[in-house]
């Protein structure tokens, strides 16, 4: 039915199969749409957020997808600035994943603020001392960059490419992509960092507070590093997932292996610095506030096991697997390591957001727990549904894997 829209020389499932494939993701989107409507109409009382958990599931989701979406800027940086030609095979999916993550996060933030109509006050009445302002500015600008990087990919569609002006526009954009990639790298560096800075600067919350360099707490640098360590892994995971569902090889191993190797080095460096950061915090900030490390985990479901998981199971372990050539060359181990790496980063964000707020600072205050409502889950899952939908549509209608034809010749 839609065969004139499909890329040349590749095999795609039937229109009906694609239609049924989109149904679950459309259902997720509908759930999210209903939740969003309720939250905007009735207010944030639809959630289980409270004066204690001012930040909750949505902010965890936001920070998680933005960290995972870092693959876009980092792969772009490696491809266009560092000249890693091999990565041209994976840059397009990386950009699309980045676009999905950032636009999804922006949409969630729009619902998360209590007065969405006043969202523009962040830009108009900007308090430049707030890390969140830096985050908002950079994310907005970077979303523009991602949209610009996405346009030439869309224009490669078979039907669109037939229009001369659009084709030329796409090619011209592609030619100066390095400029956009560089701008994107600058913007991403600062907002990934500021997302970490957001928590490091909360000096009255000893669980999150960190010392740092000039105006940037250590979390600033750690968040940048962790994002570029897990971003490529998330890109690998998404590619593998597409390969699994389409039952084809789409990206040459050399590109995947290069990303995995870079990720391994970055993750190892991150683990070393993160452990140093933990130690510095345990022997510096915590005792200075009159607390001990154990005192944070005395109550509630958030125990030391989260830290152990973050550092050992989801940090050191994937770093070792990815570092050993035999480990990352084995498909199964590679996927496990990528999964663990991404989980570790999400866990790190969770610790900084939910656990920080759950721990009372005043000695006579009590510990509070938090469970999200279906409306909160709905909006979170809607981002996942949106991601699947957009990515599968992009895979179906755009030639996002340049080596697909070469790797899967159609023999008839």
């Amino acid at each position, binding site marked *: 039915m839609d065969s004139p829209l499909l890329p040349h020389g590749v095999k795609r499932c039937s229109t009906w199969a694609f239609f049924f494939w989109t149904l679950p993701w459309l259902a997720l989107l509908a759930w999210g749409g209903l939740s969003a409507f309720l939250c905007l109409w009735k207010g944030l*009382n639809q959630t289980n957020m409270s004066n204690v958990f001012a930040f909750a599931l949505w902010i965890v989701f936001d920070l998680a997808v933005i960290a995972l979406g870092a693959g876009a800027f980092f792969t772009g940086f490696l491809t266009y600035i560092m000249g890693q030609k091999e990565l041209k095979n994976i840059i397009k999916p990386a950009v699309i994943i980045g676009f999905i993550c950032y636009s999804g996060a922006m949409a969630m933030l729009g619902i998360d603020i*209590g007065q969405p109509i*006043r969202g523009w006050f962040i830009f108009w*009445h900007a308090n430049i001392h*707030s890390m969140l302002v830096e985050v908002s500015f950079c994310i907005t600008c970077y979303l523009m960059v991602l949209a610009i990087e996405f346009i030439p990919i869309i224009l490669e569609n078979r039907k669109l490419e037939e229009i001369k002006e659009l084709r030329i526009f796409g090619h011209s954009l592609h030619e100066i992509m390095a400029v956009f990639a560089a701008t994107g790298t600058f913007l991403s560096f600062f907002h990934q960092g500021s997302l970490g800075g957001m928590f490091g600067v909360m000096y*009255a919350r*000893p669980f999150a507070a960190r010392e740092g360099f000039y105006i940037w707490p250590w979390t600033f640098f750690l968040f940048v590093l962790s994002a570029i360590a897990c971003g490529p892994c998330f890109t690998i995971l998404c590619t593998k997932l597409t390969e699994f569902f389409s039952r084809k090889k789409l990206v040459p191993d050399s590109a995947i292996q290069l990303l995995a190797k870079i990720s391994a080095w970055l993750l190892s460096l991150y683990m070393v610095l993160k452990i140093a950061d933990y130690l510095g915090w345990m022997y510096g900030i915590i005792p200075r506030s009159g607390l001990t490390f154990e005192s944070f985990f005395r109550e509630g479901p958030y125990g030391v096991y989260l830290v152990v998981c973050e550092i050992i199971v989801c940090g050191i372990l994937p770093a070792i697997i990815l570092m050993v050539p035999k480990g990352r060359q084995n498909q199964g181990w590679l996927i496990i390591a990528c999964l663990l790496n991404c989980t570790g980063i999400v866990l790190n964000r969770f610790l900084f957001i939910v656990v920080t707020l759950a721990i009372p600072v*005043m000695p006579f205050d009590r510990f509070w727990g938090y469970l999200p409502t279906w409306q909160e889950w709905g909006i979170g899952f809607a981002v996942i549904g949106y991601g699947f939908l957009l990515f599968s549509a992009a895979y179906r209608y755009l030639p996002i894997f340049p080596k697909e034809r070469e790797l899967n010749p159609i023999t008839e």
Partner: protein
Amino acid sequence: MKKGNDHGKHKYGMVIDIDKCTGCGTCMVACAAENNVSVRADQSDKERTITWMRLYKISNGKEFPHTEVSYFPRPCMHCDHHPPCVSVCVATATKLDFNTGIVSQIYTRCIGCRYCQAACPYGARYFNWWDAFPQDKGMDRYLTPEVSPRMRGVVEKCTFCHHRLMRAKTLAYAEDRRELEEGEYVTACTEACPAQAITFGDLNNPEHEVSKLIKHPFTFRLLERIGTEPKVYYHSSRDWVRKLGDNFLPGEYTPVVNKTWAEEEWSTKPGRDEF
């Protein structure tokens, strides 16, 4: 960020005598009524109710008959040094006024991102999860005309009854005075406390009672070690109460006992707990 506000003219603050506080909650009621704090039919969800002034019950944790119970009334601390909530606000909706020391909140500019709530260790900031007041119940007739009610989706907090300062200033201006007398401007909770446990005044004015009280060794602040420099002080003769004002590692807390100030007329009983 300019540091501190010692060069400012006034620095309003309060001292709460915990030994006098009976935990009756009048301060909470007076505060809520004075400041048009929104209420709902069911106020049992304590994580989401708005209580600018909130009582925390504390206990020395001992078995009967040695059990002692006290209360920490907790308004906004109006932190004097780099308030954690001010620098994080994205829309510059909250500000430390260097002339009065009051941390203000502009409700019509707040976008409701709640970053300030996350940054405040005292839990003094409250978000409006619901629309301000039950509709069509005629409750708007009970509103204080000087205080704007807040809309859904913004953060609010204790303002040290800033409108009372404005009122006192207007009065002084009409009477051709430049300065306010002590007691001309006090908060609603100060006025309402039946035990007179709250003293309010200008910490920069050595004549004011508060600036004398804060020099007393029994006086302390909440979470002093974090360095927020609150302008709300607490006063207690009991060591276990003072110890609960901050986090201490074992052996770090030094009790205040048997000092010469015990003879001073306004001091209460010296520490009677052993630590």
